[in-house]
């Protein structure tokens, strides 16, 4: 990984200038080039990187850095602050409806982790003294329903299914009805993976949305996604109006720049981070951790904070 040390590179860039007196604008530009490369290497979308770098540059040149005795650290600090802010400064959770059942629908590309995450959410929500119901609305993928049933079994949460011969709108409606009749105060709908450019299947999700009015439509995004994350997020958000994002497979070694891209184009909070295949492997999303992961410099940041 070429960007193991953005921090180191920045320190070096500025180290060379020691004794030369004040840092000038060109020095800042050089440093910003390193930042830009680091973000691109982390898969942050090109346009998002550009906007971000311009913003940071303006702030850096504006004041703090040029006057500072430790310009490298100052830049890192500004980058980190801006990045954390862009990631969403506060943690957000599921908003439960005051009129249960709260309806949650998971959507996303094929293989992103929707079905697994349904199980994880069900388990999490169950721990909050609620009675969730899972609804199997993926009628396309081979054994998708069985998969949800197995996952539901593992977390001891009931799964509503009508097989794969009914359309997802009918399934969702009947599932909601079932929840009301059986005292389930939260329903979580698993939908089939689909491409954001598949008009027919995106239309299907719109119909489901129309008919059952979910409180939370959550876009499930694989944290390894590359530049295309912006297209995916933009389309899903445009067509459905998502309420938040769940980032999966963060147990890998990806920098996860997609998080930043998705956040920047939708302006919707990333609510949860999924970190494994087991049904406990989910946590509330921490924007600050994600920021330093994308930059690949968690340790350095804690050092700067202490200094």
């Amino acid at each position, binding site marked *: 990984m070429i960007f193991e040390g953005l921090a180191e590179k920045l320190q070096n860039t500025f180290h060379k200038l020691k004794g030369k007196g004040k840092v000038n604008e060109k020095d800042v530009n050089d440093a910003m080039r390193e930042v830009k490369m680091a973000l691109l290497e982390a898969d942050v979308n090109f346009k998002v990187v550009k906007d971000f770098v311009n913003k940071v540059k303006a702030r850096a040149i504006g004041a703090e850095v040029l006057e500072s005795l430790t310009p490298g650290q100052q830049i890192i600090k500004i980058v980190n602050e801006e990045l954390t802010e862009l990631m969403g400064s506060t943690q957000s959770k599921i908003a439960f409806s005051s009129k249960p059942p709260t309806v949650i629908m998971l959507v996303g590309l094929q293989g992103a982790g929707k079905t697994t995450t349904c199980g994880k959410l069900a388990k999490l929500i169950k721990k909050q003294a609620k009675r969730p119901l899972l609804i199997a609305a993926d009628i396309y993928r081979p054994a998708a329903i069985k998969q949800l049933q197995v996952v539901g079994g593992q977390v001891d949460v009931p799964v509503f299914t009508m097989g794969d011969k009914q359309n997802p709108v009918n399934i969702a409606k009947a599932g909601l009805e079932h929840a009301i009749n059986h005292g389930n105060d939260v329903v979580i709908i698993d939908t089939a993976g689909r491409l954001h450019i598949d008009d027919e299947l995106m239309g299907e999700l719109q119909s489901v949305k129309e008919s059952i009015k979910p409180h939370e439509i959550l876009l499930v995004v*694989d944290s390894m*996604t*590359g530049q295309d994350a912006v297209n995916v997020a933009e389309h899903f958000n445009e067509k459905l109006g998502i309420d938040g994002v769940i980032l999966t497979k963060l147990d890998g070694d990806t920098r996860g720049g997609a998080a930043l891209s998705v956040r920047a184009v939708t302006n919707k909070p990333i609510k949860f981070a999924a970190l494994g295949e087991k049904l406990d492997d989910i946590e509330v999303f921490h924007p600050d951790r994600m920021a330093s992961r994308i930059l690949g410099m968690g340790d350095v940041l804690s050092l700067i904070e202490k200094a």
Partner: protein
Amino acid sequence: SKTTQGITVKIEDLIKSYQKVDEELLEELEEVLITADIGVQTTMEIIDHIRDKAKAEKIKEPEMIKVILKDKLKEILGEFEDDQQLNIQPSPAIILVVGVNGVGKTTSIGKIAHKLKGQNKKVLLAAADTFRAAAVEQLKIWGDRVGVEVISHQEGADPAAVIFDAIQAAKARKVDVLICDTAGRLHNKKNLMNELGKISKIVEREYANATRDVLLVLDATTGQNAIQQAKIFKEATNISGLVLTKLDGTAKGGVIIGISQELKIPVKLIGVGEGVADLQEFDSNSFVNALFGEE
């Protein structure tokens, strides 16, 4: 072919908007390459190559830049033209399919089985993903769909034992190609990667005479992490080919340029949908064209 429409800037339009070859043009080109997930490092190398060549040959026409670029990319990808076929001759053959979670392994296996059946091969599938919920059922549905038998154990069983049984079955039934599905695993999980080593040993010991192919499935939507995936899977299992899936979306899969260059593994097949026929042989020409939103 059923590949991507150009949501990213079309190289054509970009080139047309310039009168001469200059740094500005190269910079915009750089953007296009990065947007296709080609990655910073590989992109820089390619741009340097173009700059050098343009200088050396005194090229002034922007149109020529496109030619140099395409040639370069095709050179990187085309290096393996002889290796792009599945390695299944002579029979019997065994194909091991590996990759991280959710990339399209099981689906690709269904499609490959269908393709081979169409070539009158006798195919058998091994359900060695014993971990993921309903993975065995998923493969069985694919088996039914394409009319191929599946050897399986219970969920939670030892995957190496499934492979062992499947090999014995393949021998007994005189199968031409045995295709083994494995559980998705992230390359940074040591114990799961070791499990692949164990499977390879079983294959070596029990099926020494079989022709072998180990396919790493990569998702075109994946960014630079795919390079890491390829590196580590190659170390663990001797990958002999890549399958690049989900090219029916808007992602370009440009990361395989860097992978080809660095790791010298040929792309053998591409996935362009969820249907049984949505599998194509990899063609570097059309891939490069699609990369830039040209049909």
